[in-house]
């Protein structure tokens, strides 16, 4: 079976006034159809940039590709022309985003925005774009399937008239218009209330099951990932440090950073155990640490860690990039 998404040695930098920040350093990631994969890491570890490079949404400049390749369904994403890209976005890959407040255009009605996407997909799949009445009908149906009340009336409303949860449902509906194969959800619940978070997560889980979607869920919330994803990928400072079945990784983390992340989650059942923050700060990517990028914050670091960059190895049923993985 060909992988749906195949990222090989992907290296990406941003050029700025202060120099070049290498935000993704040799990412290798293979996603098979039907997988649900969670990408976890601190803010600034490159998880959103990774997601955006997959749909080729990183602007160049300031972005700059230093090497590597991304293949979606066997096709080189970086080599796609305009028409192929239009098919990729929405049809191949759809995205939902962190803050539903800012990802809807404030000056167009919900209906106008959805009709625009529906017709763009008609065009991308080589059909004549349907007329606006038919497109509105489809938009209303989609909104209804997101369990939004009065979907037909919703079409004439504007983003500022909706709540955060409603907006996120609208954005999910828009993402599903092109019946995508890979759904990338970039922190989809971070900006929502806790009660709404649960509803939106349940909706995403149902849609993934119903449409047999491959899901790439990006979050810094291990609980969200554990609830929706079978596989978890832990990122640190532009590198993948651990990758494996969520149950395996969570039960027995092998990378010190993964252990630190898990220890930083407060446990309601053991209130006497205080959550342990990871000491230190994420490194400045303008001049990243030598060797293992995590070594300045790692309690276990030895001399080798400051010198050699660890490669991903299979240890105890998952991949991990740590010189000391066997000893942990």
């Amino acid at each position, binding site marked *: 079976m060909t992988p749906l998404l195949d990222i090989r040695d992907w290296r990406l930098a941003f050029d700025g006034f202060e120099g070049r920040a290498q935000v993704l350093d040799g990412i290798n990631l293979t996603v098979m159809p039907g997988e649900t994969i969670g990408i976890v890491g601190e803010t600034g570890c490159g998880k959103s940039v990774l997601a*955006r490079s997959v*749909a080729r*949404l990183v602007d160049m400049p300031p972005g700059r590709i230093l090497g590597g390749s991304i293949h979606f369904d066997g096709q080189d994403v970086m080599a796609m022309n*305009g028409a192929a890209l*239009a*098919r*990729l*976005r*929405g*049809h191949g890959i*759809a*995205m939902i*985003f962190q*803050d539903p407040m*800012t*990802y*809807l*255009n*404030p*000056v*167009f*009605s919900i209906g106008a925005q959805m009709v*625009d*996407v529906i017709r*763009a*997909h008609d*065009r*991308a799949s080589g059909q004549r774009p349907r007329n606006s009445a038919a497109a509105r009908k489809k938009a209303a149906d989609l909104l209804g399937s997101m369990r939004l009340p009065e979907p037909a009336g919703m079409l004439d409303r*504007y983003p*500022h008239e909706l709540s955060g949860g409603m907006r996120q449902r609208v*954005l999910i509906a*828009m*993402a599903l*218009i*092109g019946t995508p194969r890979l759904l990338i959800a970039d922190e989809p619940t971070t900006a929502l209330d806790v009660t709404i978070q649960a509803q939106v997560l349940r909706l995403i889980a149902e849609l993934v099951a119903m449409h047999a979607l491959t899901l790439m869920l990006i979050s810094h919330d291990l609980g969200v990932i554990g609830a929706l994803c079978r596989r978890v990928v832990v990122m640190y400072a532009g590198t993948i440090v651990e990758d494996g079945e969520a149950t395996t990784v969570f039960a027995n983390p092998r990378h010190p950073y993964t252990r630190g992340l898990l220890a930083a989650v407060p446990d309601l059942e053991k209130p006497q155990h205080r959550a342990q923050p990871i000491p230190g700060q994420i490194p400045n990517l303008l001049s990243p640490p030598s060797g293992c990028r995590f070594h300045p914050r790692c309690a276990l670091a030895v001399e080798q860690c400051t010198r050699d960059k660890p490669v991903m190895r299979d240890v105890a049923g998952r991949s991990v990039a740590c010189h000391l993985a066997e000893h942990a």
Partner: protein
Amino acid sequence: MWRYVARRVALTGLMLFGLICITFTVSNIAPSDPAALAAGPDATRDMVATIRREYGLDRPLPEQFIRYVTGVVQGDLGRSIVSTRPVTQDLARFFPATLELVVLSMLLGVGLGVPLGMMSAVLKNTAPDHLTRFAAVSLVALPAFWFGILLQLFFSVWLEWLPTSGRLEVATAPPPFVTGMYLFDSLFAGQFNTFSQALAHAALPALVLSFPCLASILRVNRAEMIEVLSADYITAARAHGIARLRVICVHALRNAMLPTLAMIGLRWGWMLGSTVLVETVFDWPGIGLYAVSSAIAGDFKPVMGVTLLIGLNFMVINLIVDLLYGVLDPRLRNAP
């Protein structure tokens, strides 16, 4: 919505009254005697006194003011001492010419400024962007009278493509009066020959007048487009597979048009009040020339009339701009 318009119209009336107060005061503290000027250097005291009585200038100031305001309300702006015609008649003759120039310039300014600003934003920090911005700064910096003469030399004298001055050839009769704007009137009357002639005459002055306006619209639109293009909803629109051109020209532009619209409103007023140089260079019989020659002659009724007319125009345009804001941005529709 209609309540908002009504309130704005009432406010406009109030502002016009303020404008009348200011122009009236300024005209009367200016150290010149219109009656003496009108009577000429050889006039006797009696002749000056007669003229003063005739124009009501011997009355106490408050009475003159009340008379003037009552007149304005009834559409009477007084009488010009120099031309001896009612100011409203003069304005009806000169204002359409200026308005024609301003409308044409604004069309040029918006029609070139907005697309160039968009292009500059999309190609940010590339050669075309630098070139456009350099040209824009130069266009603002070049004085209109100098640049106008340069264009006259090039297009009229060397290439002989366009006429140097006036609104029509001397032999051509103006089209039947509807608005006083020859371009519109000639089309309305079906006189296409007159239309193309009027267009050829208006081209250079409108171009020169439009440059500062074009440049500021370009810069505002560029800055705003750059900001909007980095907005989250633009990323989302691209992620949804909407074509790049449509993202730029529809999704981004409508957001970026709000500040550009404000600039258009301001520039409109500015252009109306600054046509005099262009009118002088191109011998264009508009209100700029009328106002300046009246002011030099110490003939204040025309000056006040022109001021009021430009003020009113400015207020109306800005009311329209504010209403268009609501059309463009739904978030402003329910605002008080």
